[in-house]
């Protein structure tokens, strides 16, 4: 099984511990990640798209062309990159006029979008290509911890484009955390987003605060997620919130592949937990 990984800027620059965890866990599962040269930012599905949609689509198409030239499907590890690249791929495949427009632009750099590869969030590779049982077989040390899952928005919606899971009743992350030993805990603000894209900062602050408080109340040991941007809002963001509202939230935020890595026998340092702003010490004590 071979894929071209697209790590994106948040992971490769700001949270390389996620890249390290993906690489190590996927190697343990026998998946080959073939690194391709020349990717740029996906680009960002919020601000870049808000500025100029056609240029956004063109840069996304350029990234997809690189995978097409190598004949490999793209796998993404950030919900934002997944959103941009899936959406561009979807519209370019379905709208010949748009494809023509974008290819006119790509001609300037000698590229042409053809439409013959797929874009996949890496969790769908685990569920659909490897299978949950295979993931389970790589687990050496099931981690008996309670997880509150944060799906975020862009992994699931719009479902006609993303095609990852039922957007209102998803199960994919529950199943993946459970095979690594975790118990999944429901909480009130399960489907709320973080509000990152709002320009008035009180809104994302309130939203992230509400999500974290709801998790705190649920009794979960940590928040489990699959996107570096959501992570940024809840890990780093939590420090600012604790200061601002004089509360001690202390909800560790763990990226799925870090958790899988721990269950495969990697150390907390191997998966970079020491780099998190909200420390996971309490949680780690329970499994040591």
């Amino acid at each position, binding site marked *: 099984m071979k894929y071209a990984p697209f790590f994106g800027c948040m992971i490769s*620059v700001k949270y390389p*511990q996620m890249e*390290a965890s993906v690489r190590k866990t996927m190697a343990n599962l026998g998946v080959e990640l073939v690194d391709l040269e020349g990717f740029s*930012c996906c*680009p960002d599905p919020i601000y870049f798209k808000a500025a100029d949609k056609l240029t956004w689509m063109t840069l996304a198409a350029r990234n997809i062309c690189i995978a097409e030239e190598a004949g490999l499907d793209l796998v993404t590890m950030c919900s934002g990159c997944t959103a941009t690249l899936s959406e561009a791929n979807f519209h370019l495949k379905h*709208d010949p006029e748009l494809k023509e427009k974008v290819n006119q632009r790509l001609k*300037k750099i000698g590229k042409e979008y053809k439409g013959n590869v797929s874009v996949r969030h890496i969790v769908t590779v685990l569920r659909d290509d490897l299978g949950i049982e295979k993931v389970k077989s790589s687990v050496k040390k099931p981690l008996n911890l309670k997880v509150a899952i944060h799906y975020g928005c862009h992994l699931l919606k719009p479902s006609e484009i993303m095609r990852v899971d039922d957007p209102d009743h998803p199960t994919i992350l529950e199943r993946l955390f459970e095979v690594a030993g975790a118990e999944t805990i429901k909480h009130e603000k399960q489907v709320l987003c973080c509000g990152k894209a*709002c320009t008035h900062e009180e*809104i*994302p602050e309130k939203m992230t605060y509400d999500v974290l408080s709801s998790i705190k109340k649920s009794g979960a040991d940590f928040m489990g997620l699959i996107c570096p941007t959501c992570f940024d809002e809840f890990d780093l963001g939590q420090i600012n919130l604790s200061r601002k509202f004089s509360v001690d939230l202390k909800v560790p935020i763990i990226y799925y592949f870090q958790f899988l890595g721990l269950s495969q026998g990697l150390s907390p340092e191997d998966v970079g937990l020491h780099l998190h702003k909200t420390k996971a010490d309490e949680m780690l004590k329970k499994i040591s």
Partner: protein
Amino acid sequence: MKLVNFKFRHKLNTIIGGEAHNFCYQCGACVGDCPAALYSPAFNPRNILLEALLGDEESLVGPDSVIWDCTNCNTCYERCPQAVRPVEVIIALKNISFEKGTNPPGVKSILDSVKESGRTVKTSSLSDRRRKELGLKEISIVPLEELKKLLE
């Protein structure tokens, strides 16, 4: 009574790519689960759609437009029974606002960062060191010349 601004409506249609939003029948299904509407009383996707149908340029793409409170969560895209894709209407409005220069500064700085470095998050000596400590390869280089040609 206000007159419909058809010129603005036409422009909006061109960016959205289609006329689906003309079929909005103001049912409000997009409002119920909208997180921005829940947290910002001034924000309401149904109202935005009504203003878009009327072509209320001043309110929608002016400097204080409420469109920038949308979180881009795509829930309205799921809920709308008329396939209007309200979030895409909002994004098209943002494109027009950007063209007019009435956008919040954050939008421009992301664009500039991609122009300068090919990324929205720039590399630094700290990020290079972290990658090394984690046993990762040096970060790959973005061919900026190629990007420049596409961005001009």
